[in-house]
Structures are given as structure tokens and as C-alpha cells.
């Protein structure tokens, strides 16, 4: 069986595939447990993304600002070179140059718009967060997380209960042991 590549699975997990690709991925997932597991892992990672977005290694706004600064520097350098050229040199190409300059400005404008778009929709949550994930309950702080999973039990068969003091409980009948099991994570 030919499996979709990682990028396709990642896009599917995020709901970003086009209609036809999504349909093909769904068909494959219906009969491929391995890829379903991979999708679950991607979904878990998506839960983890907000904290990564806050990590110092991934400062998107700073990267964008640096890119724009480099573009400006390039333009300024170009102006310096042009200033050294004899007056009237290349006048014959002035129309083409204006065209190139306008096209460059348009590209710059488009790049600026893209870079200035709002960043990833990240909940700017600070401190400890308690939540249910695709297959468990989790307490998370910064880039670290502790989760208790209800592996082998579908989410619909799990009863979740929240404690306003900062706890979450997942209650289910364990398919292997047959016992009711209560997994609790607590932020205290």
C-alpha cells in the first residue's frame, strides 16, 4: 500500500488539504492504521504548537523584521552604486529601469503584506494550562507537558470532568483491564 507522504498527513491533520487531496487521504486513512496513528501524533503536536511559538527559537516577528531590514539594506546599497555612475549613463534603459523598479516595489509590497499578516493564531496563555488532548488529559507549562492517556478508548467513550482549581479528569472503562480508570492531571 502506498502511504501519503508526511507533508500530506501534516496538512490533513491541520484540515489544510484541498477537497480532492482530502478525499484521497480520508480513503487511505480508513484502511491504514499506521497513518491514522501518524495523524494522531500530528494532532498531539498541534496541541503543543502554541508553546513552541512562544519559544525563543521561533520568533517569527523578529525573523520577519530582519528580512525586511535586509531588503532595505539591499536597496540602499543599490542606490549608493547608482550614485557613483556617471550622470546620464544608461539613460537609454531608463524606461526599463523604471519598470524593474516598479515591479520590485510591487514584490516588496506583497512581501511586506505577507510578513505583516497576523502571526499564527496562538493563545497567548502564560502559566500552567490544563486541557484534554486527542487521547488524554494534559498539564502543560511552556515547552513541557505531562499527559495521561486513555489509549485504546475512543474520545466519545471518555467522560471528562474539570476542576475549577486547575484539574482535569478523564474517566473510562479500560478495554484491557475492564476496570473504570480515572486519569487526573492537576496544575497545583
Amino acid at each position: 500500500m502506498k502511504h501519503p507522504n508526511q507533508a500530506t498527513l501534516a496538512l490533513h491533520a491541520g484540515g489544510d488539504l484541498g477537497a480532492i487531496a482530502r478525499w484521497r487521504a480520508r480513503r487511505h486513512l480508513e484502511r491504514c492504521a499506521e497513518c491514522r496513528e501518524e495523524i494522531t501524533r500530528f494532532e498531539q503536536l498541534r496541541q503543543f504548537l502554541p508553546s513552541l511559538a512562544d519559544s525563543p527559537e521561533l520568533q517569527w516577528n523578529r525573523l520577519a523584521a530582519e528580512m525586511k531590514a535586509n531588503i532595505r539594506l539591499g536597496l540602499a546599497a543599490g542606490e549608493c552604486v547608482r550614485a557613483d555612475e556617471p550622470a546620464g549613463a544608461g539613460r537609454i534603459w531608463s524606461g526599463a529601469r523604471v519598470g524593474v523598479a516598479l515591479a520590485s516595489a510591487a514584490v516588496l509590497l506583497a512581501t511586506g503584506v505577507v510578513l505583516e499578516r497576523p502571526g499564527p493564531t496562538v493563545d497567548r496563555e502564560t502559566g500552567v494550562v490544563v486541557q484534554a488532548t486527542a487521547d488524554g488529559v494534559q498539564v502543560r507549562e511552556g515547552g513541557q507537558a505531562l499527559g495521561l492517556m486513555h489509549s485504546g478508548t475512543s474520545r466519545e467513550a471518555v467522560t471528562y470532568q474539570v476542576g475549577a482549581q486547575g484539574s482535569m479528569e478523564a474517566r473510562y472503562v479500560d478495554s484491557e483491564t475492564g476496570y473504570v480508570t480515572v486519569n487526573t492531571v492537576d496544575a497545583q
Partner: protein
Amino acid sequence: MPNKRQVALLALLSAGAALAQDVPLEGRVNINLGKDSPVALVSMSTGDSHSSSRGAALVLDLHMSLTLRNTSAGRIHGVALRVISQEVTVGGKGSVSIPSLNIGPGEAFPVRIDMQLMRPTQVAGGPLVDVNLDGVLFADLSCSGPDLLNSCRTMTAWEMEAQRDREHFKRILAQSGPKGLRQAMLESISRQSARPQLDVRVMRAPAVTSAAFGPARTEQFAFLQFPDSPLEPSKGSAQIAGNEAREPHIEVVNRSAQAIKYVELDWLVSDPSGQRYLAASLPASDPVLYLPAGKTANVEQTTCLRFTRRGQPVNIQGAMGFVSRVQFADGKLWVPSRADLERDSLVKVLPPSAEEQRLDDLYLKHGLDALVRDLKRY
């Protein structure tokens, strides 16, 4: 919806996954049941536990299967294990509890712990996870163990709910026979599947409220009063902004003749269509509460709760509360009766007790005869 940068990040992380490596977990899990424990460890397996690097993050999947034996002279009705990771210094902890047990002296029983740890860098040496016994509840409601997580109180409440619900179904069996019991089980299962549930995220530090929600408003609680409740909620409110609720506080009066040392209320919210949901339980924040007869206390928390359903924010329109658990100074507990819960259709909004969940599962997997046999065991 993730944008292109998040997709790119996912691709990077998946590339990291391809380089995933198994980290040996031998000796990395500590099981400590304590001295003079009423349970003994018979065996332990870490099965297909593994770790993998995904981009900057390290993910550890721990699958532990324990077999414990009842070494006491009493019947065990509940066990709670405390799960701590020294490696992941997140501000929290976990526990795995097994209520609704019925384990005789000398009998063994399995406990499964599936855990996932995430941290940004490689793990150091030393134990990854400590599993400690927190409490063991016996059939006579006595409890043993360090009880650092108040497991004894929680398991006793579960056991009282279990007794209440077993009695409810036994009464139906006695009055209406197996047919009546079958009908009651089908209604219970149908109620569980139809029960509206919200996804709730709890934040201990206040989250930044979106400007789109506007300023928070103070929503007053409405209360459901149970005639046999030792406690009466009198007034209370929470701050609501869009799909966020924070700082709930409720004033309660002790109407009983005894002093009370623990209080918990259940908090319901409703959406603009009037649909009610269980939002959270609201325990007293004071760990050393002492509420004499006739006196008043405040039950409050400082957390922020964010509500969604199927990924969409749910705007909160109303708040309702009722007393769900009370512990008296002598240690005895009160939980609402079945009649209390059937009033105002609360059973349609609240989750089933652990015991009702077990009985539903037993009926679904093994049929009516097995259920009748089980009810007669108690």
C-alpha cells in the same frame, strides 16, 4: 486553522520524527507502594514504551502495566496512584485511580498507566517517572495511604455514589424485573451519548482576554437547592467575557448541625440557545476549611476557564450551581441522592457516576444476565 508557517513547522517536526530513537526505559520508572502497604507489586512491564525527537521537542510515551495483589484482610474498593515526573518540571502532577473495584484478600488485579511526557530537550539520567501509592479504599470505607492528593476523600465519594447507583438499579430490578432493568440501562446509555459536553481549558495564570469579547461582565449564579443538602449556596458570581469565565465565587451557609471541612459545588453554564453544560466542579480553595454549623464561607477559585465545542468558542450566557460534595469534620461525606439528580433533569447534563459507567459497559459488552449477576454480588 494553522497557517503556512505552522504547516512548515509540522513538516520540520515530522522530519525529526523520522529520526526518532528508542530510549531504553529500564530502571527509569520507580514504583513505590510504601511500607506496610495493603497492596504488593506482583509484576511490572513497560511494554512498547518509547521516546522520539520531534523537532525541538522530545516526546516520551510510557506504557506501564502493573499487577498488584491485595495483601490486606479487607476487600479493596478503590486504589489511587500518584504519578510524578522529575524530568518534566511542569507545574503539575497526575494520578491514576481505579474506583468500583471489588478485590478480595490475596486476589491480584491489573493497573495500566499510559503516560506522555514532552520536553524541549534530551532527558538526563535518573528516574523518569515515580509512581507512588496515594490511597487504598476498603469496602467498609476505611482508607489507607499517604493521601497527598486527598484520594481517600475522592474515592469515598465515588464509592458512595457507586452504592447509591447500585441501589437504584437493584431497586428497578426488584420492582420491574429484568425487562425494567434493561429499559433503565438503555435510557442510561442513551443519556450518556446525548449529553452535551464542552471542551474546557483551565488556565492557572490569567489568559489575555481577546478584545473582541469586550469587557468582562459579572454573571450572578442561580442555584439548585437540594432538600437534604447540609449546605445552602446563597449568592455568587463569576466574571464572563465571551467564551471565558473566571474568578467564580459562591457564598455557602452550613445548614447542618455539624461542622464541615470540605465543600464542592458543580457549576453549570448555558449557551445562547439555553443549552446547559457542566462547566466544572468548584471546590473550596481553603485547604483547612472549618465551617461550624450556621456559619458562612466563600467557595472561590482564581483560574480562568475557556469553553469551546467542536473547535468553536461557546459564548456563556448563564451560570448555575449546586452542592455536589460535602465532608463533615468527622470525615463523613454527603453526596446528592438519585432523587436530587433527577430533579430539574440534572441527570441529562451531568456525567454518570463511575459505577453507572461500569454497569453500562458491563451491559453493553456482556449482556443483561451478566449485569444482574454483578448487581447481586453486592
